[in-house]
């Protein structure tokens, strides 16, 4: 697969970053409403990684005992999202939402994942003027030590990783969401990004 390594040019990265920024702004507004809190936005980070490199990135997060949830999305633009939130943030989230049981907390984390994923991917597709239809996302929780065994991850050879921080400073809630999209979707994305670029010249 190495020889087919897809790269993103600086311009393509810039376009994607900006589109993601806009999508993320809307997503954050929804989450902020949901939590009745104010989030500080950061610039999304965009990389093309091999699965090996991605697992290394996940591995660093694993060490600080993160909760981890994934959600798949499909359509012309398809892939999977992975949301990490550490133990402390999860506790703060529980306090903030007045949640008492572990299961309700899990539910709230899945909800956060769902809100971020749906609103990010919907917005991103809309910004690219695509006719993408989103099927119902499936959502599940994965124990950290089994991340590498997540079956759908085995389907990827390289992924565009768009990672960004969810950061509620006052409530001390920090999370990290990855939007992973695989080979054909990367090509589709590249084409769309270039159409946007050409329209601006």
């Amino acid at each position: 697969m190495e020889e087919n390594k897809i790269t993103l040019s600086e311009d393509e990265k810039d376009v994607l970053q900006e589109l993601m920024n806009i999508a993320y702004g809307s997503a954050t507004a929804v989450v902020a409403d949901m939590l009745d809190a104010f989030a500080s936005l950061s610039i999304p980070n965009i990389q093309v990684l091999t699965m090996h490199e991605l697992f290394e990135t996940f591995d660093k997060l694993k060490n600080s005992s993160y909760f981890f949830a994934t959600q798949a999305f499909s359509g012309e633009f398809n892939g999977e999202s992975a949301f990490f939130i550490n133990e402390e943030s999860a506790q703060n989230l529980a306090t903030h939402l007045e949640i008492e049981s572990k299961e309700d907390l899990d539910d709230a984390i899945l909800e956060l994942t769902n809100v971020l994923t749906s609103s990010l991917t919907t917005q991103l597709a809309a910004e690219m003027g695509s006719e993408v239809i989103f099927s119902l996302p499936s959502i599940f929780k994965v124990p950290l030590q089994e991340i590498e065994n997540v079956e759908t991850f085995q389907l990827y050879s390289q992924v565009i990783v768009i990672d960004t921080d969810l950061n509620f400073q006052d409530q001390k809630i920090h999370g990290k969401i990855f939007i992973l999209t695989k080979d054909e979707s990367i090509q589709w994305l590249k084409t769309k990004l270039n159409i946007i670029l050409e329209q601006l010249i």
Partner: protein
Amino acid sequence: MRKFLVTDDSKLARRTLIKSLKEYILEERIFEASNGFEALKLTLKEKPDVVFLDLTMPVMDGYEAIPKIKNINPDIKIVVVSADIQEKAKEKVYALGATLHVQKPIKSDKMKAILEVI
């Protein structure tokens, strides 16, 4: 004729904004900056009347730049163009002295509305 300064770290964001701005404004009256600090320098040098300003930028972000730009010219109009549409974010930029807060991206129709307001 008024002068305009467009500030955003994303080239795409600047292109998009300038493209719609050019429909109403002559190109030579439009200047570009890629962060808050450059915006400050250009505000001193080119003396723009309107500054379009993004919030999340490296070196100096929008929140820091607003009062500093206002300090140079209290009459300057600052239009915050951001992806951050949280109510709190809007309140914050208005408190700092922004004239307007609009959601990205700015296409032709939105630009027309903005130019009418300011």
